[in-house]
C-alpha cells in the first residue's frame, strides 16, 4: 500500500481498436491514470488532450480510417507520467512536422495539422521510434515537479 501523501508508482495498459468512438475510452483511461498519479489537476486536461491528439493522428493517418489496434502503456512514478502509444500503421515521425502559423492556417482555411503542435506545447518530451517490421512507438512524458522538464 502506498504511504499517505506519496504518489503511486504504477504501470497500466489499454488496447483499443482504431475507431474514433474509442477516443472517449482512451481519455477515460488516461484520466484514471492521471488521477492516480501525482500530476497536478491543472495539467490533467492537457495531458488527456495530448494523448487524444496522438491517438487521433494514428487513427486518421497511421491506419487511414481502416482497421488496426492501438496500445497505450502508462508508467507513472513520483517524478513523471509517461504514456507510450504503439501502433502498426503507416510510420509517421512528428519531428518532421513544423509548428503551424495559426494566422496562415485561418487564411487558408486549413483544419488539420494541429495535433502535434499541441502535443509539443503540453508535454515535456515527445519522442518517436520506428523499426521496420516492428511497431511505431510514440512516447509522451510529463515531468511532475514544479520546474517541469528541469525537475
Amino acid at each position, binding site marked *: 500500500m502506498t504511504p499517505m501523501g506519496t504518489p503511486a508508482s504504477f504501470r497500466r495498459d489499454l488496447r483499443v481498436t482504431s475507431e474514433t468512438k474509442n477516443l*472517449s475510452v482512451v481519455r477515460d483511461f488516461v484520466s484514471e491514470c492521471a488521477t492516480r498519479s501525482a500530476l497536478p489537476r491543472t495539467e490533467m486536461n492537457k495531458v488527456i488532450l495530448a494523448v487524444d491528439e496522438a491517438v487521433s493522428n494514428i487513427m486518421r493517418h497511421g491506419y487511414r480510417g481502416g482497421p488496426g489496434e492501438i496500445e497505450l502503456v502508462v508508467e507513472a512514478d513520483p517524478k513523471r507520467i509517461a504514456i507510450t502509444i504503439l501502433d502498426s500503421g503507416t510510420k509517421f515521425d512528428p519531428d518532421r512536422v513544423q509548428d503551424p502559423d495559426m494566422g496562415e492556417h*485561418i487564411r487558408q*482555411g486549413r*483544419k488539420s495539422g494541429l495535433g502535434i503542435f499541441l502535443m509539443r506545447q503540453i508535454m515535456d518530451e515527445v519522442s518517436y521510434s520506428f523499426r521496420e517490421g516492428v511497431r511505431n512507438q510514440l512516447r509522451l512524458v510529463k515531468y511532475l515537479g514544479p520546474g517541469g522538464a528541469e525537475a
Partner: protein
Amino acid sequence: MPKFQITTQKVGNNVTLVNVQGFLDAHTFEEMETTITGLFNEKQFRLVVDLSKVDYISSAGAGVFIGAIGTAQENRGSIILMKPTANVKEVFDLLGLSQLFQFADDVDSAIKIFQ
C-alpha cells in the same frame, strides 16, 4: 459519455445561434462541420456558437472553426464563440486562437459584435 448534440436557432439581426453539447473531438467534428456547411449554404454567415455545454474539445473540433471562419468573414459574417468552459478555452489558448476569435458571454453581446 454525454450524447453529442447540435441545434440551431435564429436569434435576430440575421444571426444564427449554434448550440453544441458533448465532446467535440475527432469522432464528432464532422457533424459540426456538416452543420456549419449547411448554414453557409443557407447564406447564414453570422454564427454564434454556444460552447457552454461542450466538456471537451480537441484540435479536430477547433479545426472546424479555423476552417470555417475565413468563409464567414468573406461573406460579411463571423463565428463568435460563446461561453467556452475553462477546459475548452484552455485549448484555444494553447493553439494561439484566443486572439484570432472573438468570444462573448451571452447572446445579446454576441449579436452586438455583428452590429
